[in-house]
Protein backbone atom coordinates (compact mmCIF):
# COMPACT_ATOMS: atom_id res chain seq x y z
CA UNK A 1 0.00 0.00 0.00
CA UNK A 2 2.79 2.36 0.98
CA UNK A 3 4.68 1.63 -2.25
CA UNK A 4 1.46 2.03 -4.24
CA UNK A 5 0.78 5.47 -2.73
CA UNK A 6 4.38 6.61 -3.08
CA UNK A 7 4.45 5.61 -6.74
CA UNK A 8 0.85 6.36 -7.59
CA UNK A 9 0.24 6.18 -11.35
CA UNK A 10 -1.10 9.56 -12.41
CA UNK A 11 -3.85 7.82 -14.34
CA UNK A 12 -5.35 6.74 -10.99
CA UNK A 13 -5.68 10.43 -10.11
CA UNK A 14 -7.16 11.08 -13.57
CA UNK A 15 -9.86 8.49 -12.89
CA UNK A 16 -10.73 10.06 -9.53
CA UNK A 17 -10.97 13.52 -11.10
CA UNK A 18 -13.19 12.20 -13.91
CA UNK A 19 -15.50 10.38 -11.47
CA UNK A 20 -15.53 13.46 -9.21
CA UNK A 21 -17.07 15.36 -12.08
CA UNK A 22 -19.26 12.74 -13.75
CA UNK A 23 -21.02 11.42 -10.62
CA UNK A 24 -22.21 14.80 -9.23
CA UNK A 25 -23.21 15.80 -12.79
CA UNK A 26 -25.60 12.85 -12.92
CA UNK A 27 -27.04 13.51 -9.45
CA UNK A 28 -29.23 16.38 -8.26
CA UNK A 29 -26.54 18.13 -6.20
CA UNK A 30 -27.80 21.62 -5.49
CA UNK A 31 -26.36 23.83 -2.78
CA UNK A 32 -27.20 27.43 -1.90
CA UNK A 33 -24.83 29.75 -3.72
CA UNK A 34 -23.61 32.65 -1.57
CA UNK A 35 -23.39 35.97 -3.44
CA UNK A 36 -20.16 37.96 -3.20
CA UNK A 37 -20.16 41.76 -3.17
CA UNK A 38 -18.21 42.00 -6.43
CA UNK A 39 -20.85 40.08 -8.41
CA UNK A 40 -23.67 41.91 -6.66
CA UNK A 41 -22.10 45.21 -7.78
CA UNK A 42 -22.46 44.26 -11.47
CA UNK A 43 -26.06 43.22 -10.95
CA UNK A 44 -26.88 46.48 -9.12
CA UNK A 45 -25.21 48.59 -11.80
CA UNK A 46 -27.23 46.93 -14.56
CA UNK A 47 -30.45 47.47 -12.57
CA UNK A 48 -29.46 51.11 -12.25
CA UNK A 49 -28.66 51.41 -15.97
CA UNK A 50 -32.09 49.93 -16.74
CA UNK A 51 -33.79 52.57 -14.59
CA UNK A 52 -31.93 55.32 -16.49
CA UNK A 53 -32.45 53.91 -20.02
CA UNK A 54 -28.73 53.61 -20.60
CA UNK A 55 -26.77 51.61 -23.16
CA UNK A 56 -24.33 48.88 -22.22
CA UNK A 57 -21.22 47.90 -24.16
CA UNK A 58 -20.11 44.28 -23.82
CA UNK A 59 -16.65 43.34 -25.02
CA UNK A 60 -16.53 39.62 -25.75
CA UNK A 61 -12.84 38.94 -25.27
CA UNK A 62 -12.78 35.19 -24.72
CA UNK A 63 -12.22 32.29 -27.04
CA UNK A 64 -13.76 28.80 -27.04
CA UNK A 65 -11.09 27.66 -24.56
CA UNK A 66 -12.87 29.68 -21.87
CA UNK A 67 -16.40 28.93 -23.07
CA UNK A 68 -17.57 26.84 -20.08
CA UNK A 69 -16.56 29.60 -17.66
CA UNK A 70 -17.42 32.81 -19.50
CA UNK A 71 -20.27 31.93 -21.87
CA UNK A 72 -22.73 31.49 -18.93
CA UNK A 73 -21.74 35.00 -17.78
CA UNK A 74 -22.40 36.38 -21.27
CA UNK A 75 -25.83 34.74 -21.36
CA UNK A 76 -26.75 35.93 -17.87
CA UNK A 77 -25.66 39.52 -18.44
CA UNK A 78 -27.50 39.65 -21.79
CA UNK A 79 -30.63 38.16 -20.24
CA UNK A 80 -30.49 40.68 -17.41
CA UNK A 81 -30.06 43.59 -19.88
CA UNK A 82 -32.82 42.47 -22.25
CA UNK A 83 -35.17 41.80 -19.33
CA UNK A 84 -34.67 45.41 -18.21
CA UNK A 85 -35.04 46.80 -21.78
CA UNK A 86 -31.40 47.93 -21.81
CA UNK A 87 -29.80 48.48 -25.21
CA UNK A 88 -26.69 46.37 -25.71
CA UNK A 89 -23.80 46.78 -28.14
CA UNK A 90 -21.34 43.91 -28.45
CA UNK A 91 -17.81 43.89 -29.82
CA UNK A 92 -14.68 41.81 -29.59
CA UNK A 93 -10.93 42.25 -29.30
CA UNK A 94 -10.18 38.65 -30.22
CA UNK A 95 -11.28 36.95 -33.44
CA UNK A 96 -12.19 33.53 -32.07
CA UNK A 97 -14.92 34.90 -29.79
CA UNK A 98 -17.16 36.12 -32.60
CA UNK A 99 -19.16 32.90 -33.02
CA UNK A 100 -19.70 32.50 -29.28
CA UNK A 101 -20.84 36.09 -28.84
CA UNK A 102 -23.21 35.77 -31.77
CA UNK A 103 -24.75 32.63 -30.25
CA UNK A 104 -25.19 34.33 -26.88
CA UNK A 105 -26.97 37.28 -28.52
CA UNK A 106 -29.22 34.96 -30.56
CA UNK A 107 -30.23 32.91 -27.51
CA UNK A 108 -30.91 35.80 -25.13
CA UNK A 109 -32.59 38.02 -27.75
CA UNK A 110 -34.97 35.22 -28.70
CA UNK A 111 -35.97 34.61 -25.07
CA UNK A 112 -36.81 38.26 -24.39
CA UNK A 113 -37.91 39.36 -27.85
CA UNK A 114 -35.08 41.85 -28.22
CA UNK A 115 -34.85 43.26 -31.75
CA UNK A 116 -31.63 43.47 -33.76
CA UNK A 117 -30.81 47.06 -34.59
CA UNK A 118 -33.32 48.46 -32.11
CA UNK A 119 -32.26 46.79 -28.87
CA UNK A 120 -28.90 45.33 -29.72
CA UNK A 121 -26.21 44.86 -32.29
CA UNK A 122 -22.95 42.98 -32.51
CA UNK A 123 -20.07 44.82 -34.12
CA UNK A 124 -17.74 41.85 -34.35
CA UNK A 125 -13.97 41.75 -34.09
CA UNK A 126 -11.47 44.50 -34.82
CA UNK A 127 -7.73 44.27 -34.25
CA UNK A 128 -5.67 47.08 -32.78
CA UNK A 129 -6.13 46.60 -29.02
CA UNK A 130 -5.26 49.87 -27.32
CA UNK A 131 -5.53 51.83 -30.56
CA UNK A 132 -9.04 50.49 -31.10
CA UNK A 133 -10.09 51.57 -27.60
CA UNK A 134 -8.60 55.05 -28.16
CA UNK A 135 -10.53 55.28 -31.46
CA UNK A 136 -13.75 54.17 -29.81
CA UNK A 137 -13.22 56.75 -27.08
CA UNK A 138 -13.74 59.78 -29.28
CA UNK A 139 -14.98 58.45 -32.62
CA UNK A 140 -17.16 55.42 -32.11
CA UNK A 141 -18.67 55.44 -35.60
CA UNK A 142 -15.21 55.80 -37.13
CA UNK A 143 -13.87 52.83 -35.19
CA UNK A 144 -16.81 50.63 -36.16
CA UNK A 145 -18.30 52.03 -39.35
CA UNK A 146 -20.45 48.95 -39.86
CA UNK A 147 -21.68 46.17 -37.61
CA UNK A 148 -21.16 42.49 -38.36
CA UNK A 149 -24.26 42.34 -40.59
CA UNK A 150 -23.01 45.29 -42.65
CA UNK A 151 -25.40 47.92 -41.23
CA UNK A 152 -24.09 51.46 -40.90
CA UNK A 153 -23.48 52.27 -37.20
CA UNK A 154 -24.18 55.97 -37.78
CA UNK A 155 -27.70 55.05 -38.90
CA UNK A 156 -28.60 52.01 -36.83
CA UNK A 157 -31.05 52.93 -34.05
CA UNK A 158 -29.06 51.33 -31.23
CA UNK A 159 -25.70 52.88 -32.19
CA UNK A 160 -26.51 56.20 -33.87
CA UNK A 161 -26.46 58.25 -30.66
CA UNK A 162 -23.20 56.80 -29.38
CA UNK A 163 -20.36 59.22 -30.09
CA UNK A 164 -17.72 57.76 -27.81
CA UNK A 165 -17.09 55.51 -24.83
CA UNK A 166 -18.35 58.13 -22.37
CA UNK A 167 -21.85 57.63 -23.83
CA UNK A 168 -22.08 54.12 -22.41
CA UNK A 169 -23.72 53.79 -19.02
CA UNK A 170 -21.70 50.64 -18.37
CA UNK A 171 -18.90 48.80 -20.12
CA UNK A 172 -18.56 45.11 -19.34
CA UNK A 173 -15.58 43.11 -20.46
CA UNK A 174 -15.93 39.32 -20.59
CA UNK A 175 -12.38 38.10 -20.82
CA UNK A 176 -9.98 35.22 -20.87
CA UNK A 177 -6.88 37.31 -21.52
CA UNK A 178 -5.33 40.64 -20.63
CA UNK A 179 -7.92 42.90 -22.26
CA UNK A 180 -9.40 44.37 -19.04
CA UNK A 181 -6.17 45.41 -17.32
CA UNK A 182 -4.14 45.68 -20.53
CA UNK A 183 -6.58 47.55 -22.75
CA UNK A 184 -9.87 48.68 -21.27
CA UNK A 185 -8.57 50.27 -18.07
CA UNK A 186 -5.41 52.06 -19.29
CA UNK A 187 -6.65 53.02 -22.77
CA UNK A 188 -10.34 53.59 -22.03
CA UNK A 189 -11.54 53.85 -18.45
CA UNK A 190 -8.61 56.00 -17.33
CA UNK A 191 -9.58 58.82 -19.71
CA UNK A 192 -13.32 58.45 -20.25
CA UNK A 193 -14.16 57.42 -16.67
CA UNK A 194 -17.00 55.08 -17.65
CA UNK A 195 -18.23 52.49 -15.18
CA UNK A 196 -16.39 49.28 -15.88
CA UNK A 197 -17.29 45.72 -14.86
CA UNK A 198 -15.54 42.45 -15.57
CA UNK A 199 -16.43 38.80 -16.05
CA UNK A 200 -13.32 36.68 -16.37
CA UNK A 201 -11.84 33.22 -16.06
CA UNK A 202 -10.82 32.10 -12.58
CA UNK A 203 -7.16 32.13 -13.65
CA UNK A 204 -7.35 35.89 -14.19
CA UNK A 205 -9.52 36.76 -11.19
CA UNK A 206 -6.87 37.11 -8.41
CA UNK A 207 -4.91 39.65 -10.51
CA UNK A 208 -7.90 41.98 -10.78
CA UNK A 209 -8.40 42.81 -7.06
CA UNK A 210 -6.13 45.90 -7.12
CA UNK A 211 -8.43 47.43 -9.77
CA UNK A 212 -11.53 46.64 -7.73
CA UNK A 213 -10.23 48.44 -4.65
CA UNK A 214 -9.03 51.43 -6.68
CA UNK A 215 -12.51 51.77 -8.20
CA UNK A 216 -11.23 51.44 -11.78
CA UNK A 217 -13.44 48.36 -11.92
CA UNK A 218 -16.73 48.36 -10.00
CA UNK A 219 -17.52 44.63 -10.02
CA UNK A 220 -16.20 41.27 -11.08
CA UNK A 221 -17.45 37.76 -11.81
CA UNK A 222 -14.59 35.30 -11.49
CA UNK A 223 -14.82 31.87 -13.08
CA UNK A 224 -17.69 29.40 -13.04
CA UNK A 225 -18.50 30.29 -9.41
CA UNK A 226 -18.93 33.96 -10.39
CA UNK A 227 -21.15 32.93 -13.29
CA UNK A 228 -23.26 30.77 -10.95
CA UNK A 229 -23.69 33.72 -8.61
CA UNK A 230 -24.99 35.87 -11.45
CA UNK A 231 -27.37 33.14 -12.57
CA UNK A 232 -28.66 33.02 -8.99
CA UNK A 233 -29.12 36.80 -8.89
CA UNK A 234 -31.23 36.88 -12.06
CA UNK A 235 -33.12 33.71 -11.08
CA UNK A 236 -32.11 31.84 -14.20
CA UNK A 237 -30.16 28.72 -13.27
CA UNK A 238 -28.02 27.58 -16.13
CA UNK A 239 -24.89 25.62 -16.87
CA UNK A 240 -22.82 27.44 -14.23
CA UNK A 241 -25.24 26.68 -11.38
CA UNK A 242 -25.51 23.09 -12.57
CA UNK A 243 -21.72 22.78 -12.50
CA UNK A 244 -21.32 23.93 -8.91
CA UNK A 245 -22.05 20.47 -7.45
CA UNK A 246 -19.29 18.88 -9.50
CA UNK A 247 -16.97 21.80 -8.84
CA UNK A 248 -17.41 21.47 -5.06
CA UNK A 249 -17.02 17.71 -5.08
CA UNK A 250 -13.91 17.60 -7.25
CA UNK A 251 -12.25 20.35 -5.20
CA UNK A 252 -12.67 18.12 -2.14
CA UNK A 253 -11.11 15.20 -4.03
CA UNK A 254 -8.07 17.26 -5.02
CA UNK A 255 -7.67 18.59 -1.49
CA UNK A 256 -7.77 14.98 -0.22
CA UNK A 257 -4.98 14.11 -2.67
CA UNK A 258 -2.93 17.12 -1.54
CA UNK A 259 -3.37 16.10 2.11
CA UNK A 260 -2.51 12.49 1.28
CA UNK A 261 0.58 13.63 -0.63
CA UNK A 262 1.72 15.64 2.40
CA UNK A 263 1.03 12.80 4.84
CA UNK A 264 3.12 10.46 2.66
CA UNK A 265 5.82 13.11 2.45
CA UNK A 266 6.04 13.59 6.21
CA UNK A 267 5.86 9.85 6.94
CA UNK A 268 8.25 8.54 4.30
CA UNK A 269 9.08 11.12 1.70
CA UNK A 270 11.71 13.07 3.66
CA UNK A 271 14.03 10.11 3.37
CA UNK A 272 13.06 9.25 -0.19
CA UNK A 273 12.42 12.69 -1.63
CA UNK A 274 8.68 12.19 -1.95
CA UNK A 275 6.59 10.22 -4.36
CA UNK A 276 8.18 9.65 -7.70
Amino acid at each position, binding site marked *: MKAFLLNLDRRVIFVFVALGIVIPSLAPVRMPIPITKDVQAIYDTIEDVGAKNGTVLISFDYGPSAKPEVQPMALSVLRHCFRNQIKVIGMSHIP*TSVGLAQRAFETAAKEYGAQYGEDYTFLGFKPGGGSLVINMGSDFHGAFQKDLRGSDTAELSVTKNIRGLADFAYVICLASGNTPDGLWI*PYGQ*ERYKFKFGLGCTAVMAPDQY*PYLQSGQMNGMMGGLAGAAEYETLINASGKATAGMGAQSFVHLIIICFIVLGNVMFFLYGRQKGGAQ
Partner: protein
Amino acid sequence: MNRDHLVFFLFLLVFAAVNIYLFASGSLPANMTGLGTFIAAGITLSLYSFLYKDNPLFKFAENLYVGVAAAYTLNQVWYTVLLPDVITPISELDGESMNNLWLLVPTMLGFFMLTQLSAAKYSWLSRIAFAFVVGLGSGLAIPRTIAANLLAQMQPTMQAITPDFAGVNLFIILVGVVAVLVYFFYSVEHTGAVGVASKIGIYFLMISFGASFGYTIMARLSLLIGRVGFLLEEWLVLQLPLF
Protein backbone atom coordinates in the same frame (compact mmCIF):
# COMPACT_ATOMS: atom_id res chain seq x y z
CA MET B 1 -1.17 -6.61 -31.78
CA ASN B 2 0.03 -5.00 -28.53
CA ARG B 3 -2.06 -3.63 -25.69
CA ASP B 4 -2.09 -0.06 -27.04
CA HIS B 5 -3.48 -1.18 -30.40
CA LEU B 6 -6.14 -3.18 -28.61
CA VAL B 7 -7.17 -0.19 -26.50
CA PHE B 8 -7.21 1.99 -29.62
CA PHE B 9 -9.50 -0.33 -31.58
CA LEU B 10 -11.71 -0.98 -28.58
CA PHE B 11 -12.13 2.77 -28.15
CA LEU B 12 -13.13 3.20 -31.79
CA LEU B 13 -15.49 0.24 -31.58
CA VAL B 14 -17.27 1.54 -28.48
CA PHE B 15 -17.52 5.03 -29.96
CA ALA B 16 -19.00 3.63 -33.19
CA ALA B 17 -21.46 1.41 -31.32
CA VAL B 18 -22.67 4.24 -29.09
CA ASN B 19 -23.21 6.51 -32.09
CA ILE B 20 -25.04 3.85 -34.07
CA TYR B 21 -27.34 3.41 -31.09
CA LEU B 22 -27.81 7.18 -30.68
CA PHE B 23 -28.69 7.69 -34.35
CA ALA B 24 -30.84 4.53 -34.57
CA SER B 25 -32.83 5.43 -31.46
CA GLY B 26 -33.36 8.96 -32.73
CA SER B 27 -31.54 10.54 -29.77
CA LEU B 28 -29.27 12.23 -32.29
CA PRO B 29 -31.21 13.55 -35.28
CA ALA B 30 -30.06 12.35 -38.72
CA ASN B 31 -29.29 15.86 -39.98
CA MET B 32 -26.45 18.38 -39.84
CA THR B 33 -27.15 19.10 -36.15
CA GLY B 34 -26.82 15.43 -35.23
CA LEU B 35 -23.75 15.05 -37.41
CA GLY B 36 -22.24 18.13 -35.76
CA THR B 37 -22.76 16.71 -32.27
CA PHE B 38 -21.25 13.40 -33.41
CA ILE B 39 -18.17 15.18 -34.80
CA ALA B 40 -17.82 17.40 -31.73
CA ALA B 41 -18.03 14.35 -29.44
CA GLY B 42 -15.48 12.51 -31.58
CA ILE B 43 -13.04 15.42 -31.38
CA THR B 44 -13.57 15.80 -27.64
CA LEU B 45 -12.92 12.12 -26.95
CA SER B 46 -9.98 12.00 -29.37
CA LEU B 47 -8.32 14.79 -27.46
CA TYR B 48 -9.03 13.14 -24.11
CA SER B 49 -7.38 9.95 -25.40
CA PHE B 50 -4.11 11.80 -24.73
CA LEU B 51 -4.70 11.07 -21.03
CA TYR B 52 -3.97 7.42 -21.76
CA LYS B 53 -1.06 8.09 -24.09
CA ASP B 54 -0.08 10.31 -27.02
CA ASN B 55 -1.70 8.71 -30.07
CA PRO B 56 -2.71 9.35 -33.70
CA LEU B 57 -6.31 10.22 -32.79
CA PHE B 58 -5.13 13.04 -30.54
CA LYS B 59 -2.71 14.33 -33.16
CA PHE B 60 -5.41 14.15 -35.85
CA ALA B 61 -7.85 16.28 -33.86
CA GLU B 62 -5.14 18.68 -32.69
CA ASN B 63 -3.77 19.44 -36.16
CA LEU B 64 -7.16 19.68 -37.79
CA TYR B 65 -8.11 22.20 -35.10
CA VAL B 66 -4.98 24.30 -35.73
CA GLY B 67 -5.85 24.63 -39.42
CA VAL B 68 -9.51 25.43 -38.76
CA ALA B 69 -8.66 28.03 -36.10
CA ALA B 70 -6.12 29.76 -38.36
CA ALA B 71 -8.67 29.98 -41.17
CA TYR B 72 -11.32 31.30 -38.76
CA THR B 73 -9.04 34.15 -37.69
CA LEU B 74 -8.15 34.94 -41.30
CA ASN B 75 -11.85 35.00 -42.13
CA GLN B 76 -12.55 37.51 -39.34
CA VAL B 77 -9.68 39.73 -40.48
CA TRP B 78 -11.07 39.67 -44.02
CA TYR B 79 -14.74 40.31 -43.28
CA THR B 80 -14.34 42.80 -40.43
CA VAL B 81 -11.22 44.76 -41.37
CA LEU B 82 -9.69 44.18 -44.78
CA LEU B 83 -12.95 44.19 -46.74
CA PRO B 84 -14.92 47.01 -45.02
CA ASP B 85 -12.06 49.20 -43.77
CA VAL B 86 -9.44 48.82 -46.50
CA ILE B 87 -10.56 47.30 -49.80
CA THR B 88 -14.03 48.84 -50.13
CA PRO B 89 -12.98 52.44 -49.25
CA ILE B 90 -9.87 52.27 -51.45
CA SER B 91 -11.82 50.85 -54.38
CA GLU B 92 -14.28 53.75 -54.05
CA LEU B 93 -11.52 56.37 -54.39
CA ASP B 94 -12.08 58.53 -57.44
CA GLY B 95 -11.34 62.04 -58.65
CA GLU B 96 -14.14 63.59 -56.59
CA SER B 97 -13.93 61.71 -53.32
CA MET B 98 -10.41 61.52 -51.95
CA ASN B 99 -11.47 61.35 -48.27
CA ASN B 100 -9.99 57.93 -47.79
CA LEU B 101 -6.66 58.60 -49.49
CA TRP B 102 -4.92 58.39 -46.09
CA LEU B 103 -5.75 54.68 -46.05
CA LEU B 104 -3.00 54.06 -48.57
CA VAL B 105 -0.32 54.78 -45.95
CA PRO B 106 -1.28 52.10 -43.36
CA THR B 107 -2.08 49.69 -46.19
CA MET B 108 1.40 50.18 -47.57
CA LEU B 109 2.85 49.72 -44.06
CA GLY B 110 0.80 46.53 -43.80
CA PHE B 111 2.29 45.19 -47.01
CA PHE B 112 5.74 46.20 -45.77
CA MET B 113 5.08 44.05 -42.70
CA LEU B 114 4.32 41.04 -44.89
CA THR B 115 7.82 41.28 -46.41
CA GLN B 116 9.15 39.96 -43.08
CA LEU B 117 9.02 36.39 -44.39
CA SER B 118 10.22 37.18 -47.90
CA ALA B 119 13.74 37.21 -49.31
CA ALA B 120 16.35 39.25 -47.40
CA LYS B 121 16.45 41.71 -50.27
CA TYR B 122 13.01 43.03 -49.34
CA SER B 123 12.51 41.96 -45.74
CA TRP B 124 14.11 45.14 -44.36
CA LEU B 125 10.93 46.96 -45.42
CA SER B 126 9.12 45.17 -42.61
CA ARG B 127 11.34 47.04 -40.13
CA ILE B 128 9.64 50.29 -41.09
CA ALA B 129 6.23 48.81 -40.33
CA PHE B 130 7.43 47.28 -37.05
CA ALA B 131 9.11 50.56 -36.07
CA PHE B 132 5.80 52.35 -36.60
CA VAL B 133 3.75 49.83 -34.60
CA VAL B 134 6.24 49.35 -31.78
CA GLY B 135 7.20 53.03 -31.54
CA LEU B 136 3.61 54.26 -31.50
CA GLY B 137 2.56 51.44 -29.16
CA SER B 138 5.31 52.38 -26.70
CA GLY B 139 4.44 56.06 -26.87
CA LEU B 140 0.73 55.43 -26.28
CA ALA B 141 1.46 52.98 -23.46
CA ILE B 142 3.81 55.11 -21.35
CA PRO B 143 1.44 57.85 -20.14
CA ARG B 144 -1.47 55.44 -19.80
CA THR B 145 0.51 52.92 -17.78
CA ILE B 146 1.73 55.71 -15.50
CA ALA B 147 -1.81 57.05 -15.03
CA ALA B 148 -3.78 53.80 -14.75
CA ASN B 149 -1.34 51.31 -13.27
CA LEU B 150 1.00 53.47 -11.18
CA LEU B 151 -0.72 56.65 -9.98
CA ALA B 152 -4.24 55.19 -9.77
CA GLN B 153 -2.86 52.19 -7.88
CA MET B 154 -0.71 54.17 -5.46
CA GLN B 155 -3.51 56.51 -4.48
CA PRO B 156 -5.80 53.93 -2.79
CA THR B 157 -2.76 52.42 -1.06
CA MET B 158 -2.12 55.69 0.72
CA GLN B 159 -5.62 56.36 2.09
CA ALA B 160 -6.12 57.63 5.64
CA ILE B 161 -6.22 54.72 8.07
CA THR B 162 -9.28 54.75 10.32
CA PRO B 163 -9.55 52.98 13.70
CA ASP B 164 -11.94 50.25 12.52
CA PHE B 165 -11.84 46.94 10.59
CA ALA B 166 -11.59 48.72 7.21
CA GLY B 167 -8.69 50.76 8.59
CA VAL B 168 -6.89 47.61 9.73
CA ASN B 169 -7.30 46.16 6.25
CA LEU B 170 -5.93 49.34 4.69
CA PHE B 171 -2.94 49.16 7.00
CA ILE B 172 -2.31 45.50 6.06
CA ILE B 173 -2.53 46.42 2.36
CA LEU B 174 -0.05 49.27 2.85
CA VAL B 175 2.39 46.98 4.71
CA GLY B 176 1.97 44.27 2.08
CA VAL B 177 2.53 46.54 -0.92
CA VAL B 178 5.63 48.11 0.64
CA ALA B 179 7.02 44.73 1.76
CA VAL B 180 6.54 43.19 -1.69
CA LEU B 181 8.23 46.17 -3.33
CA VAL B 182 11.14 45.81 -0.87
CA TYR B 183 11.41 42.12 -1.74
CA PHE B 184 11.73 42.98 -5.45
CA PHE B 185 14.30 45.71 -4.74
CA TYR B 186 17.59 43.98 -5.39
CA SER B 187 19.88 47.01 -5.20
CA VAL B 188 20.32 46.67 -1.42
CA GLU B 189 21.26 43.60 0.56
CA HIS B 190 18.30 41.94 2.25
CA THR B 191 19.62 42.06 5.83
CA GLY B 192 18.43 43.78 9.00
CA ALA B 193 15.23 45.82 8.64
CA VAL B 194 15.24 45.36 4.87
CA GLY B 195 15.55 41.61 5.40
CA VAL B 196 12.54 41.57 7.76
CA ALA B 197 10.46 43.62 5.32
CA SER B 198 11.50 41.37 2.46
CA LYS B 199 10.52 38.29 4.50
CA ILE B 200 7.09 39.79 5.16
CA GLY B 201 6.87 40.48 1.43
CA ILE B 202 7.51 36.80 0.71
CA TYR B 203 4.65 35.79 3.03
CA PHE B 204 2.26 38.13 1.21
CA LEU B 205 3.44 36.77 -2.12
CA MET B 206 2.92 33.19 -0.94
CA ILE B 207 -0.67 33.91 0.09
CA SER B 208 -1.25 35.51 -3.29
CA PHE B 209 0.41 32.68 -5.25
CA GLY B 210 -1.60 30.15 -3.24
CA ALA B 211 -4.80 32.01 -4.12
CA SER B 212 -3.78 32.08 -7.78
CA PHE B 213 -3.00 28.36 -7.70
CA GLY B 214 -6.36 27.57 -6.10
CA TYR B 215 -8.14 29.69 -8.70
CA THR B 216 -6.19 28.04 -11.52
CA ILE B 217 -7.24 24.57 -10.36
CA MET B 218 -10.80 25.87 -10.16
CA ALA B 219 -10.60 27.25 -13.73
CA ARG B 220 -9.26 24.06 -15.30
CA LEU B 221 -11.86 21.95 -13.52
CA SER B 222 -14.62 24.30 -14.70
CA LEU B 223 -13.51 23.71 -18.28
CA LEU B 224 -13.61 19.98 -17.70
CA ILE B 225 -17.08 20.25 -16.16
CA GLY B 226 -18.17 22.09 -19.30
CA ARG B 227 -16.91 19.35 -21.60
CA VAL B 228 -18.33 16.54 -19.45
CA GLY B 229 -21.65 18.40 -19.49
CA PHE B 230 -21.53 18.50 -23.30
CA LEU B 231 -20.81 14.77 -23.56
CA LEU B 232 -23.56 13.80 -21.11
CA GLU B 233 -26.29 16.20 -22.15
CA GLU B 234 -25.75 16.97 -25.82
CA TRP B 235 -24.05 13.83 -27.13
CA LEU B 236 -25.53 11.06 -24.93
CA VAL B 237 -28.73 13.13 -24.53
CA LEU B 238 -29.14 12.21 -20.87
CA GLN B 239 -31.84 14.00 -18.92
CA LEU B 240 -29.87 15.20 -15.92
CA PRO B 241 -30.08 14.61 -13.00
CA LEU B 242 -30.38 10.89 -13.62
CA PHE B 243 -31.25 9.90 -10.06
